[in-house]
């Protein structure tokens, strides 16, 4: 069975600083990989996804993520964070076939300092 580890429960970053959120997955084959963001009281919004091809994927709101097969990682990055980026970020993995459910990490809570 697949699993996702987000080692950082909380991260505090100053506004304007760069950001990297870590995600490691465990899966026997090439996975589908996703990053979702959840603002307080809101649902899950897709930031970006990796299915195949270029291992550096661009998403919405200036986010990008890089799939590194050798490290089983899919870290999320943003060069300059904004106060509105404060939210919970979830990494998720899915299998490549069938209507399979996604497996989510426990999330990283991002706090933006002024």
């Amino acid at each position, binding site marked *: 069975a697949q699993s996702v580890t987000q080692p950082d429960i909380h991260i505090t970053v100053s506004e304007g600083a760069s950001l990297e959120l870590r995600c490691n997955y465990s899966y026997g084959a090439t996975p589908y990989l996703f990053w979702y963001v959840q603002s307080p009281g809101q*649902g899950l919004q897709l930031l970006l996804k990796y299915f195949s091809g270029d291992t550096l994927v661009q998403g919405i709101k200036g986010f990008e993520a890089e799939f590194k097969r050798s490290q089983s990682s899919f870290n999320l990055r943003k060069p300059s964070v904004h106060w509105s980026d404060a939210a919970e970020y979830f990494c998720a993995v899915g299998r490549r076939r069938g209507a399979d459910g*996604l497996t989510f990490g426990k999330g990283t809570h991002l706090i933006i300092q002024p």
Partner: protein
Amino acid sequence: EPEVTQTPSHQVTQMGQEVILRCVPISNHLYFYWYRQILGQKVEFLVSFYNNEISEKSEIFDDQFSVERPDGSNFTLKIRSTKLEDSAMYFCASSEALGSAAGGGGSVPDTQYFGPGTRLTVL
């Protein structure tokens, strides 16, 4: 932009009562899902639904749960006899089909888009 909608946004019920959570998936999507998120914990998969039948379910999705697509637009999750531990945020998601899978296995789902959730509180 089309989106998944869910009703109600908040449901309060007494232990042992039945609840039905409703979802309207994105109109051209063919795959439907339910997830739950207990407060402070990660999002957990419950069930997926395709072609009018359950495609996959987790061990959480026991006999007290059922899903239905009663018409062409709604997708529901029923909890037959609620327990205190069913208190959670329940998310519906949907995805469209990408096309034929390799090896002729039929279509495969694309990205899952989530609704805003229904917060279920069991007293």
